């Protein structure tokens, strides 16, 4: 399972970094989210899936 994030859609709210801090981070300069771990292990993968669900901009996909 691979985590991808479309930075052109990202609204910079940081929800993903709150829900799955090991997988996502909000860039402190650009304020755009980025993926830290593309193929997370099972616990982090579950968090990444939650982040996909909680992203208000539909920028994250896990699959």
């Amino acid at each position: 399972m691979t985590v991808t994030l479309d930075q052109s859609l990202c609204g910079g709210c940081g929800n993903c970094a709150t829900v799955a801090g090991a997988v996502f981070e909000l860039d402190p300069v650009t304020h755009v989210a980025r993926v830290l771990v593309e193929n997370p292990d099972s616990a982090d993968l579950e968090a990444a899936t939650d982040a996909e669900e909680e992203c208000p901009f539909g920028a994250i996909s896990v699959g």
Partner: protein
Amino acid sequence: MTSDVVSKCPYTGATITADDLEGYDPLDRGQGLDPEPWMSVARWAKPVFYMEAVGQWCVTRGAEVGEVLRDPETFSSADAVTISPLALERMPDGYFLEDAIAAVDPPQHTAMRKFASRFFTARQSESLVSFVTELADRLIDEFVDRGEVDLATEFCQHIPIQVVATMLEVDSARARDLYEWAVNGLMLQSEPNLSDPVRIEHAVETQRQFFDFITGLMAERRDTPERADLITTLVHARSDDGTPSLTEREVVGIVANVLSAGADTAATTIANCLLTLLERRELWERMVADPDLIPRALEETLRHRPPFRMVPRTVTKSVELGGVQFEQGDRLLLHVHSAHRDAALFQDAGEFRLDRENPKDHMGFGKGIHYCIGAPVARMEMRTAMERLVARIPSLRLSPRSAPEYVTGIVVMPIRDGLFVEWDVEAAAR
């Protein structure tokens, strides 16, 4: 050649040019409700201009509004809440909404938001669908036999505050008080020039009651650590070393923020959506025929008639924005309504359309780190409330006495009353 860009005041018929923008008064009822004659000139000729009436700068284009919202270091949310100095004088401990999540910067903001965010997830909000369905049905039961009602006061205004009350596990009988306190607080933040002593006295008194109620809840929840609601979680949150994670002021700020943000904006959006659909009744017919269009109609309402009108920010360092040089301490108001009418962001921006390719590209919930934490809950409650009205009263139409009134404010313009509608009682699902 900025003076070539002109528009017409809809009230006086006078020509508006870039030179007239300084005189734009967002607290004037007409200009506040329909800012486009001024903003359409500003976006072309003077995208960032000074508003004499409120002593702050107006940012009108989508590009700059987005840029500011996404740069919290340069454009701070702290100190951006401006209330009348005469009101502040009456608050010896300061105004508690200055500690709202929306009014603080990182890293404090990051910590506060983290505690609150897990109560407002998409999953959490879907679990409240049946509550909102029953609530909407109960409200409709109250008036369905009458054939006419003011939907603003008897429907829209009850939905969000009852949802917040149930989320915070507050007695639903207090919902009306919470609504009044929250709206008075929003208006206090919306009228920095307020000087009428009677209105100041009233506003300050409502905020004292609001504060006392919240601190009362916090005291009560300290004794019941077994509860799982937001307030209990906040007052019992501990750092690794066992000290409280949040200060008393921060907890008050979070709770007051949730209540004030949750009280009106969704109510006004439901009202604005109904108004648009019923003014062009063929749009209402489309909702009746295909209720799956309701979420689209609501997103387009958030764009076309956003409940948050202007968002305040304070400049923290020298920066150029829209051709104007700013210094630390300058105050900006980001005109969300105007940004949403920017042709660079939306085609046919003045039109209400259900077929937009980018229906969610609005800033009705903000953008950046202060993006509305309650957006999933707001979307769910607005959608569910609309679905119940469409299902039960398909013959709904504006009544001849319909005359919606809004409370005029800089930050928000809450629906007050006058959204009178009528229907065929026999055709309604009673």
